[in-house]
């Protein structure tokens, strides 16, 4: 497989998804909105700008964190497309939390620092949501994505049979799309949160990494809970999933940090009750 082509394709599709996301949000809010290729223009714009490292920054960390973001999601993309372990992808999700934190801390800016602290704060509720992968293991008996796909071919799609787990995963992904109600790390009261001080080429690189991240997370959800499908259908299903999230993002205000954590903990409780129910009922319904 030409992994490089997949990565570049995923970057393009991810940027396009971001653009569509913005457009849909704008239309729901009866604004004209930017064109859907706006995010490409963003990347272009940032890469043509002057670039330097702030004097207060921790230089190596400031620069190295950007390739780290791109690299971990490129790796996750490879794991997804080769049907590797789901655990790796959620490992990457947590590594992304670390890079978010590092982004904020590296610059020395108080806004970045605040965003970084919020990213760790939200990790407190997102990490237990990853217990849902234990739920998937409980249901399917495997964590290899290829096995999960095969299980769904035999037993029906997990979106229906394991709805609470899908709900938990949905919340995880929702917390990572732009303009999310759970996106407390880049709320407007702290400027751009942890991305505040990364401008120019660094910001363009970050946008590339985040585009990859959006694509991978959407594709993971579709693959895990709907199953194997041709590539073009995967794209369409991801887009539909994204549109549902666009509606949520357009219609909900951004939550305060403690509300976001509370809601996510509520979802965790639902998942735990569901798993206890499965355990007592002795297997899948």
């Amino acid at each position: 497989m030409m992994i490089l082509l997949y990565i570049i394709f995923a970057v393009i599709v991810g940027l396009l998804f971001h653009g569509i996301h913005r457009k849909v949000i704008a239309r729901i809010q009866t604004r004209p909105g930017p064109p859907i290729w706006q995010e490409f223009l963003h990347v272009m714009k940032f890469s043509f700008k002057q670039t330097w490292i702030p004097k207060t920054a921790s230089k190596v960390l400031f620069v190295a964190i950007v390739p780290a973001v791109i690299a971990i999601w490129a790796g996750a993309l490879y794991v997804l497309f080769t049907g590797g372990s789901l655990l790796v992808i959620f490992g990457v999700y947590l590594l992304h939390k670390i890079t978010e934190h590092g982004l904020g801390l590296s610059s020395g800016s108080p806004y970045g620092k605040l965003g970084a602290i919020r990213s760790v704060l939200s990790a407190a509720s997102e990490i237990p949501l990853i217990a849902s992968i234990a739920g998937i293991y409980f249901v399917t008996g495997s964590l290899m994505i290829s096995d999960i796909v095969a299980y769904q071919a035999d037993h029906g799609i997990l979106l229906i049979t394991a709805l609470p787990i899908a709900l938990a995963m949905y919340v995880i992904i929702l917390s990572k799309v732009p303009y999310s109600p759970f996106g407390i790390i880049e709320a407007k009261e702290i400027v751009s949160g942890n991305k505040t001080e990364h401008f120019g080429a660094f910001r363009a690189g970050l946008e590339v990494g985040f585009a990859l991240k959006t694509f991978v997370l959407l594709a993971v959800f579709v693959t895990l809970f709907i199953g194997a499908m041709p590539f073009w259908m995967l794209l369409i299903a991801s887009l539909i999933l994204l549109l549902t999230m666009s509606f949520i993002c357009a219609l909900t205000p951004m939550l305060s940090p403690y509300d976001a954590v509370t809601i996510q903990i509520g979802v965790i409780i639902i998942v735990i009750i569901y798993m206890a129910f499965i355990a007592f009922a002795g297997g899948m319904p």
Partner: protein
Amino acid sequence: MIRKETEKKISKDQAKAAALISAIICITASALAFTGHINGWLGAGIVVVAFPVFVLSLFTALRESTKDGDYPFVGY
């Protein structure tokens, strides 16, 4: 602690060279993995490391020149 404020910038030529080299590494690794000369995960590992370098160095190469340009025409 007092730090020396050194302004070191990567020149555009250096960035271009880095972009070119990392692009060649990416393409070679993924091609070799595709044709089966090296393990798939090894090729993926190389691409995963080299691709971010490519992206950043490409964007750095594209960036605005550090010299003062012409002042744009600002009004009538």
